[in-house]
């Protein structure tokens, strides 16, 4: 019985959240958390922080390839649609001018490159960030809600991380120059 209670309690813990006052402190702390072997953690900041991506060893975003793919699909299908319409589906002989008048297709092809590139990019953003996602455990922290989107920086380590041990992780986070460490319920 007791064991299951502890199990329950552990499952309810999402992780630990440390608060920092400056982006530099956040980057330094992130670096040390990574060196300590943690992998399931995330940093939260009210504006993009330089060096954070490197400190977390995140791979660079695949977004350029997504946008490129969308742009290629837009360009090929746009050009193809016009060629199909003017050469095959609805050919019109206007003073013997060539049916395949590709220079005239360029403006629409270009616009569709841009349009589908942008659509693919936004769809990719939604896919990678799993948006829209109105609920997330960090929102259970009142302090996070009051400051994360305005003036404070946070580092959250998830309880799922194999390295995670409540006391040990908490001690580590307190040594990182944080102003506050709190437990987050799942």
């Amino acid at each position, binding site marked *: 019985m007791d064991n299951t209670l502890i199990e329950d309690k552990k499952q309810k813990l999402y992780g630990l959240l440390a608060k920092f006052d400056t982006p530099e402190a956040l980057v330094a702390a992130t670096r040390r958390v990574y060196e300590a072997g943690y992998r399931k953690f995330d940093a939260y900041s*009210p504006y993009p922080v330089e060096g954070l991506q490197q400190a977390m060893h995140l791979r660079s*975003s695949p977004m350029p390839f997504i946008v490129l793919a969308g742009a290629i699909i837009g360009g090929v299908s746009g050009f193809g649609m016009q060629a199909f319409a003017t050469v095959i589906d*609805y050919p019109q002989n206007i003073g013997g001018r060539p049916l395949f008048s590709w220079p005239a297709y360029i403006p629409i092809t270009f616009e569709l490159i841009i349009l589908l590139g942008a659509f693919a990019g936004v769809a990719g953003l939604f896919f*990678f960030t799993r*948006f829209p996602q*109105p609920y*997330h455990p960090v929102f259970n922290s009142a302090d996070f809600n009051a400051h994360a*989107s*305005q003036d404070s920086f946070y580092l959250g380590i998830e309880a799922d991380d194999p390295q995670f041990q409540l006391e040990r992780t908490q001690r580590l986070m307190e040594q990182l120059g944080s102003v506050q460490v709190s437990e987050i319920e799942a």
Partner: protein
Amino acid sequence: MEILEQTPIIEPGHTSLSVTSAIADVPLTPIRRTPVGWIAGLLLAFAIMMALLYAVGALFIEGIGVWGVNAPVGWAFAIVNFVWWIGIGHAGTLISAILLLLRQDWRTSINRFAEAMTLFAVANAALFPILHLGRPWLFFYLMPYPNSMGLWPQFRSPLVWDVFAITTYALVSLLFWYMGLVPDLATMRDRAKNIWAKRIYALASLGWRGSARHWSHYLSLYLLMAALATPLVISVHSIVGMDFAYGLVPGWHSTIFPPYFVAGAVFSGFAMVLTLLIPLRAAFHWKDFITARHLENMAKVMLSMGLVVAYGYLMEIFNAFYSGDIFERANTLDRFTGFYSPLFWGLIAANVVIPQLLWFKGVRRNVLVLFVISLIVNVGMWLERFVIIVQSLSKDFLPSSWHIYLPTIYDILTYVGTLGLFLTLLFLFLRVLPAISIFEMRELVHETGHHNAVAVENATDGKAQVYPAKPTKKEADTAKGGR
């Protein structure tokens, strides 16, 4: 960066929290404390918008005949307004995309507002060609869709290119603008006191929580969108220029049109940004964020674009005589001396002569004079489009078909009404959304902090290792009280 130190792009002494509250608290003002000025402004704009409702209602009931258009002047106010509005939109994209790629810090405090202006201007612009269709309810014929008539749009026509260009421009601008808003909507969600405001902002913010993983994808996409929007904005007005250049009408058939239209668009767009921002920064006490330096920079862009436009005028006149084409030459002489010549000389004064005052620093620094010049340029660019479109059509090849176009009251009310629509949308935007990008301002505060930094540590690469000047009182307190 050296020049920036002379006149700041943000007044010193600001922190993350102070910029956040200065910007976010404007839309979060409780309903009962809505400023009287805002209510009066919205009511006035809304009343003007009713002119549009009336004029469009009359148009739908009676048909195109209520306008002054008649052969050979088939294009008049509607197309003038279309080109004018779409041109105004271009400054927003230029500020948000091109200046982002060029790493111009000063764009930060004006990009959100300029993008909103773009959207509302494009919305107005897109109305006009549809109203001009004759059977506006069949506007979807312009799109390629599988239809029972087995027809396709004419893909070789610049008018169909325009449909694609404007649609793409409106959608990409909307996505870019909304994307830029998401982190700020999260801030609004966290600051909102009213439960319904909180819920609506929470929905719109998509659950943004500032995660580093999200920022990495977000910033990557933001730059890519800017890179897509940059050629897009140039293509849009080039295609608008081609609408005319492809026609054989003297005064239209000219290869200079696409670049010259783009320059004119940016010119009038910056004029409109100045016209709107100068009163707004006073009304909302944003002089710390939109400083004299912003106004001066915009004035400089306006001056340089004005010179490109002046070059366009000059080359048009030169080519008319150099080409030896008697129709082109007669058309140009008619611009100088004909029925519409007062408008022509008016546009030369407004777009070429008066902007030369901007060479003087004293003029660029005088807010009132700058405001007046920006208004004059707005009017001048409208006249330019009117002269290009109407004057050219009114004197075409056969003297027997020459015809003087004069607008009817419905032409004028439609135009004035779109000004009301534009202002209504702007007032609503200012009431519910942050008009300055808050997260980019925080970043700017952090980056400029190192100019005042007490001790600059490891400043080898400029930004990365720098501490802000002084922590706020609150930050210092929490640091002391922390575990």
